[in-house]
């Protein structure tokens, strides 16, 4: 069967899965007065359509920032504006200032879901396909299988088409950035990533690797003319893109400051709700939120994040290859997720994207991570009424990755890149079969996640500990993520100079 037909079948299946998930409920459905993220997106369409640009981020009589005020960068606002124009054509009631607050109807839901599908088809899906075809090793069947598995990653589907968000835009643009860099089109890559950054400020998690990679490349080209000139071109591209995106806000110095104030709400505290990172998990044992002052919290968070991103970034700086770049993306974003300030559980998607990119090389660990990332969002998904799609997409993803990518077969010690672990155990436990241990841990971990999912749904928590299950989910996920960050750092830092089994394109 030809490639194009296999690809189209995979894309069609991916789209079908997405649209089928969109039948289910969304965040805040039928829950006045605040509703949820779905209402937030609708509200932004209302605000951007009806109000002039200089009022979008400000608290005015027409724009109550306490009711889902805009807290993403300008590109999101422009996107909402475009959607609002279409909405106005279809049904003006959807974006009526004030009157449309809390508007819910079947046709409106279809419209909103359609906007997500549209941007997904336009931005994210082509990027995934191009990535798999240009940067994946193996036969064309294997590339198609990888693309298929990436397209069926449950976390992104459930959040974008269930909870309701536009992560496919920012992640898609970031992926285009990675593609550009991988193909050697640094300017295009920088442009795409800057656009991603201007869509969601969380993309900052990815910015350090981009910076180190490009800087490393420029240095490699020599610190004389060529390298320096290249650096200047990249910087200019980034600055011009920023300027273009922020142009309406540059007329008045108060504007950009207010926007930044909305984007980075330092006043909101170390963490909110239950999230699978260090601070929330630590809080279970020691109430650091109340124990330490705000400044100490900030400092601690900054210090630990820096501690974990520095080795990875330095290694990337010294060896700017695509493989290192992908691993640095994983390590940096995971470090930010675990140690940064005011992290939301959905930010795990920022880590999931680069892990998808190493699917082909380390299928077992990637599958494990991606399933854990979906599991870590379980409390959120249950709140949104997405239990059925969660179960079905997770099981389908597990099965397909193991079957199509032969994840369990491709798990020798060398394939799992357990170099350092082998070195550590060499002395005392030379006969240890690390590969088998990893597989056992994998199955055991899946069983634990399944069991905890089951109990979260079926059992009632004890009256004294109403948040027992979300906390357990967060802590379990956190422990997994800690293991993963150590593993991925190990893979990146212990990579030998040359490896025959890998074919890198850069």
């Amino acid at each position: 069967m030809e490639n194009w037909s296999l690809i189209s079948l995979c894309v069609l299946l991916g789209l079908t899965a997405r649209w089928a998930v969109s039948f289910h409920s969304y965040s805040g459905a039928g829950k006045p007065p605040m509703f949820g993220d779905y209402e937030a997106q609708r509200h932004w369409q209302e605000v951007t359509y009806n109000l002039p640009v200089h009022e979008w981020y400000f608290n005015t009589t027409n724009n109550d920032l306490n009711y889902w005020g805009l807290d993403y960068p300008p590109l999101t606002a422009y996107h909402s504006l475009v959607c609002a124009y279409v909405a106005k054509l279809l049904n003006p009631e959807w974006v009526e200032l004030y009157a449309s607050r809390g508007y819910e109807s079947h046709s409106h839901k279809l419209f909103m879901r359609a906007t997500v599908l549209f941007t997904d088809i336009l931005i994210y899906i082509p990027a995934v396909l191009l990535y798999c075809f240009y940067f994946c090793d193996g036969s064309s069947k294997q590339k198609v299988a990888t693309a298929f598995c990436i397209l069926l990653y449950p976390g992104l589907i459930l959040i974008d088409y269930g909870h309701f968000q536009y992560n496919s835009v920012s992640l898609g643009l970031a992926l285009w950035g990675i593609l550009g860099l991988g193909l050697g089109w640094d300017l295009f890559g920088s442009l795409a990533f800057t656009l991603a950054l201007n869509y969601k400020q969380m993309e900052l998690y990815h910015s350090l690797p981009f910076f180190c990679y490009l800087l490393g490349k420029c240095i490699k080209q020599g610190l004389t003319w060529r390298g320096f000139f290249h650096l200047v071109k990249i910087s200019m591209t980034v600055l011009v893109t920023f300027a273009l995106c922020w142009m309406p806000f540059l007329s008045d110095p108060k504007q950009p400051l207010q926007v930044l104030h909305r984007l980075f709400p330092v006043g909101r505290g170390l963490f909110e709700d239950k999230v699978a990172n260090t601070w929330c998990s630590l809080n279970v044992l020691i109430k650091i939120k109340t124990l330490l002052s705000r400044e100490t919290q900030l400092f601690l968070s900054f210090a630990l994040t820096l501690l974990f991103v520095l080795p990875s970034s330095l290694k990337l700086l010294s060896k700017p290859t695509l493989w290192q770049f992908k691993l640095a993306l994983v390590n940096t974003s995971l470090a930010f997720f675990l140690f940064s300030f005011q992290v939301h559980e959905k930010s795990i998607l920022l880590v999931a994207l680069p892990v998808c990119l190493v699917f082909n090389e380390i299928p077992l660990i990637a599958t494990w991570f991606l399933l854990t990332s979906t599991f870590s969002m379980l409390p959120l998904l249950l709140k949104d009424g997405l239990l059925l799609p969660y179960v079905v997409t997770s099981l389908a993803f597990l099965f397909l990755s193991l079957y199509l990518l032969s994840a369990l077969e491709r798990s020798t010690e060398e394939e799992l890149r357990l170099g350092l672990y082998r070195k550590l155990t060499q002395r005392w436990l030379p006969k240890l079969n690390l590969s088998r241990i990893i597989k056992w841990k994998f199955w055991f971990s899946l069983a634990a996640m399944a069991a905890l999912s089951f109990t979260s749904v079926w059992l009632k928590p004890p009256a004294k500990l109403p948040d027992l299950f979300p906390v357990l989910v967060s802590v379990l996920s956190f422990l997994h993520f800690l293991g993963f960050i150590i593993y991925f750092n190990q893979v990146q830092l212990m990579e030998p100079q040359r490896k025959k089994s890998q074919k890198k394109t850069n």
Partner: protein
Amino acid sequence: MAAPVTNDQSWFFALALGVSFLKCLLINAYHSTDFEVHRNWLALTHSLPAAQWYYEATSEWTLDYPPLFAWFEYGLSHIARFFDKEMLVVQNLNYASPATILFQRLSVIVADVVFFYAVKECCKCLREDKGKYLLGKPSFILTVLLLWNFGLIIVDHIHFQYNGFLFGVLLLSIARHFQNRHFEGALLFSILLNLKHIYLYIAPAYGIYLLRCFCFTQSNADGSLQWRSFSVVRLVTLGTIVLSTFSVSFGPFIALGQLPQASMTGGLVQEFQHSVLPSVSPLATLVCTVLSILPALFRIWHRPNGARGFLRCLVICALGSFMFGWHVHEKAILMAILPLSLLAVESREDARIFLILSITGHYSLFPLLFTTQELPIKILLLLLFTIFSLTSLKTLFRKGGALLNPLEATYLLGLIPLELICEFVYPLTVWQKTFPFLPLMLTSIYCALGVTYAFIRLYISLLTCSDSTKKIKTQ
């Protein structure tokens, strides 16, 4: 042989599991009144004694399937108890709690296991070509064409029916005939008739085939009938099997004197007076149907072609009654498409006919799902099935030029503008209010062309095929 045993089974399991996952995702999709029909039947078989099943008329959806299906619903109702007791109350009309929806949808998904088994058996009947890579193997292609059949997914798992289970029984019966296990095949078909009476359409094919090929144990060298080889034993055994199945099914109701009630009046008596074209009576349609299938029946009596000839005749009977029958549902096209899949992976001509029939027939199911929410799903799934069937059959039969001639290809491509007009452009025009049924009419007429064309080609292939297949004596 080439691949290890585990590899041989695993792709089948992967395909079956994959389609089951898709079906689970569609649990919350739109469901038609058929959902309430089956809920009502669960309720009345559970709450009432058998004597009243065919009399119960609280709901407008009275029991109009044969008794074995009623017993099937009765069995299901015992499991339904654990999901939501309220659905088993007859008075709870249109009751559709989430647990009810979950249970009913899951029951269809689980009942499809019968279909999976039947497909596996059908794959065993193919003339396998060893050594081909997986995606080009006829058994792989057939499995996908059947397990992932667009019509079956749409009708069963969105619209809501139990066709997967029923077609599983039909395909199993056909597979048994291919495997020369005729008694089992006959038994399965009798059971099928007692599950859903619509399969009467293809009963003539079974009757003639079994009489000709099974009761007459031998044919002459040139394929003609050898009268002396008539086996009374076989005829009597067959008769016993059929009669005993019917008596087990209908017996209790005959004993209670309810036979007239159990005559499945649903849809058989409503006559419409047409305003423009002449009105058609049920008798006229019966005559037309019989006339349309008679030549095929004569053909397999005169020159049987073994199990494959029987299958071809079965498809013709199904198509003939689809085209000329009384009160036919568009879903009945599946009765022709699914068995034809078996022939399509083995013969070039059949592959051509299958492509035209399946694409047109599947498109004709679009009006069943008229909601906007399901629009992307039906388009995506139809594209999925069409692309797969086109490319895989083309690759399978790549020797000998293009599979579809330009006219056929143009006709099929014409479905795209038809869909755009009917579902996107027309609703925005003024005529939507005054002539709301125009798109449906256009769809029906356009698809009728394709179905008729397929019917004629199928006939031609049946009437001319015996020469090339004389070498293959399967019976």
